[in-house]
């Protein structure tokens, strides 16, 4: 076996090892992204639950309407997750409420959680629900 053959074998081994390491890094990055997406989903769900608690009564005896966009302004949150030793990723929660029907009274609630993955890719987790009055 000549030195040239050894060097060629080493180069091939190096390429294989580099591929394996790249695979590990890809797995770790995907796990982090999945965790952040889950945290973003939880934050959006939290806002949806808050909108569910807003009073929206149409009955003449006790009419009330707290299901208004002004009650749910944009909010900055931190997407926290384990194993990073960092302060988390910042995200913005946006709420959109729109009337889709007067009879029966129905409103669409859409919550977007917008965050940036590692300073490069912008990701939005959205949740939509439809809510009736007098619930």
């Amino acid at each position, binding site marked *: 076996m000549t*030195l040239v053959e*050894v060097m060629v074998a*080493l180069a091939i*081994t*190096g390429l294989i*090892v580099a591929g*394996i*390491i790249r695979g*590990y*890094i890809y*797995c*770790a990055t995907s*796990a*982090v992204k*999945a*965790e952040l997406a*889950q945290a973003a989903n*939880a*934050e959006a*769900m*939290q806002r949806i*639950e*808050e*909108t*569910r*608690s*807003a*009073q929206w009564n149409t009955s003449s005896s006790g009419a009330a309407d*707290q299901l208004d966009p002004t*009650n*749910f302004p944009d909010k900055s949150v931190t997407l*926290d*997750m*384990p*194993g*990073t*030793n960092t302060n988390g990723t910042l995200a913005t929660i946006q709420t959109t409420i729109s009337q889709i029907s007067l009879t029966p009274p129905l409103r669409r609630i859409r919550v977007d959680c917008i965050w940036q993955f590692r300073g490069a890719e912008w990701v939005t987790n959205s949740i939509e629900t439809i809510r009736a009055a007098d619930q």
Partner: protein
Amino acid sequence: MPEILIAMTVFLLVVGAILSANLFGLRMFQMTNTKLMVTQWSRQTIENLMNQIHGCNSVYVGNMTNGGFAGFLPGETQQGNSLLIYQTTDTNKYIIYFVNLADQTFRRTDQMGTVILADSVTNTLAFSAQDLSGTVLTNINNNSVIHVMLEFYQPARFMQDADYYKLETSIKQRVVPP
């Protein structure tokens, strides 16, 4: 002779690279495994909690003292270490989630017994009843949102640094009895 020396050097380099790659792989596996396990656990726990609160008959925030649940009186801040859920009007059937201050565990209790759901919980006031803007209420209110926040300290383990993180969600009871 020089061939043997070169071969041995190359062999040592290869062995070193293989060992380094193995250690690196182990570390990456540990990191990914921890993340996925915690993600799975939190998703399951939060989902169970959400389902139970969504469909419950009544839910109360309080404190677990001497093995018993103590709810808050009107006028008191609705924030404590435990959550009592009645699935029906039968008060003999209940579920209590609480942070056990003695050993910093997050537990679930029902008629069948108590199970530990998580450990290393560092905060005591895990549950609160809030209004739509996130303000903690001082009175029991049918429109309150149950806010859950668990803060964890993950001690340093093999090839993994210590870490602190929190799990937070809000859940609104769906069917409010008349």
